[in-house]
């Protein structure tokens, strides 16, 4: 991948897309893992409570004092009562909080539902936006073309039929880099500077 294309790839990674490459210089495959229903991103690294579906809140709880602490610190025990913190589910109606036998079993064996070793948290099952449980992959083959000359850009558009799903044209004129993001279906053969934006148009990647 040439450096201009690599720069675009890194931009897309920063926006949450995954990038896959071949030996070709100026193309790559962009991929997203999304909710089937609403297209929100899907994260297999996000964990939720196996019992009720609550997301990992990333906090420590002292059950004795019923107080909450950031897990960023190095302190592992409650500063008030010296009890060990646990990483429990914060949903009051979750079985881990309403059934003493279940709660004790979880908190004795592990340090709460969201303890790193716990079997009571699982990878994301519900969409963070709509709550659906179905997810899928979408892919886009992307080509990047860079030039500081509009004649070259228009000549490129005329000569190249759309082989890829998305074409990103980088215009490197005097006023900084500007972008035109085209889909295969856009079928544009001539462009002018006013068509270009200051950023890559991410709405084309859905």
């Amino acid at each position, binding site marked *: *991948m040439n450096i201009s294309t690599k720069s675009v790839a890194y931009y897309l*990674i920063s926006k*949450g897309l*995954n*990038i*896959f*490459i*071949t030996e070709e210089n100026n193309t*790559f*495959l962009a*991929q997203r*893992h999304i909710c*089937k229903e609403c297209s929100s*991103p899907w*994260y*297999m*690294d*996000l964990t939720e409570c*196996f*019992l*009720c*579906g*609550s*997301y*990992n*809140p*990333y*906090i420590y709880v002292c059950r004795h004092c019923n107080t*909450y602490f*950031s*897990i*960023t610190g190095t302190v592992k025990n409650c500063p008030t009562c010296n009890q060990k913190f646990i990483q429990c589910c*914060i*949903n*009051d*109606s979750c*079985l881990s909080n309403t*059934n003493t*036998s*279940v709660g004790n*079993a979880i908190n004795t*064996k592990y340090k709460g539902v969201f303890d790193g070793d*716990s*079997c*009571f*948290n*699982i*990878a994301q*099952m*519900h969409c*963070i*936006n*709509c*709550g*659906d*449980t179905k*997810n*899928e*992959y979408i*892919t886009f083959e992307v080509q990047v073309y860079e030039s500081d000359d509009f004649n070259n850009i228009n000549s490129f558009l005329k000569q190249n039929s759309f082989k890829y799903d998305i074409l990103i044209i980088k215009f490197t004129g005097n006023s900084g880099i500007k972008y035109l993001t085209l889909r295969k279906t856009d079928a544009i053969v001539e462009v002018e500077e006013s068509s270009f934006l200051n950023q890559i148009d991410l709405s084309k990647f859905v």
Partner: protein
Amino acid sequence: MTHPKSFPINPFPDVKPNDFHKLNKKHVSEDYVGENFKLINWDVFAPFNDTGIDRIISKYICPNGHTKYNENLNTHPCPHCDTPSYKIYRFIQIKTRELKGVASDTFGYTLKTKDFRTDPRHIFLFYSDHTNDFILVSVYDYLNFFEANHDHFHASPTFKQGNGKINNLKYDANNDSWTFKNISWDIFRNIPGIEKIQNPDYDKYLDRYINDIDCLKRKLFYEFSSGRTFATNIEQVINQYIKQTSSNPKSTFLNIKSANIHKLRALGLDIVNSINGYYAKFKGLHI
């Protein structure tokens, strides 16, 4: 029973695959898989950033299933039925292992809850570098196998902990055959395996397969067995509870999410900022 060894081959003849040990074999194994797919005319994409997918492979096939495992129609219509071809993608997760156990016949592997997506195009590729075999199983076939054989492994605490090693995939050297719990897995092996994963139905009926995998996943995952980890008295209580919660409508889940956010916001700015720091990598999720 002999299997043609035209696939896979060793694309790197200067080194034997099993010359690598488990700590330095990941890169070469993934390249080994990728080069083998290139040799049979698939396009191969390697990850540029860290994802749960080790390779994406693609090619043009006939929607009526006429395309051979090593054939790429490259946008041309099917030579058999003249139907326009279309491009398929398969998302490959590679597990490379040597055979272990008393009889050196066991392919031990671990799959975690995060490895199971509901897209049928997600493929588990088990690469046995000592026998030079690829076992290719779509997430659909994998879950379906466990459900059809009433295997409750996914209910175990060890599976959800992520350290539940599966030691049921075995190689029988005498018969040159692969089995899982004594059921043949040769249908997933090498060329028959590729023929299964390039099934055009995964693309034509993608929505239906996603629904089916979602149902399989919820049925297999939302079950709890106490195993040797917990007392049996909580097993029934938990199973009754998750039977109810796993069939809740989406609105129930969203209500819990909303109540949790409300509760977390009340804990003060320091804690909210800390939580949002962890949520930063999950775009769309914040307190």
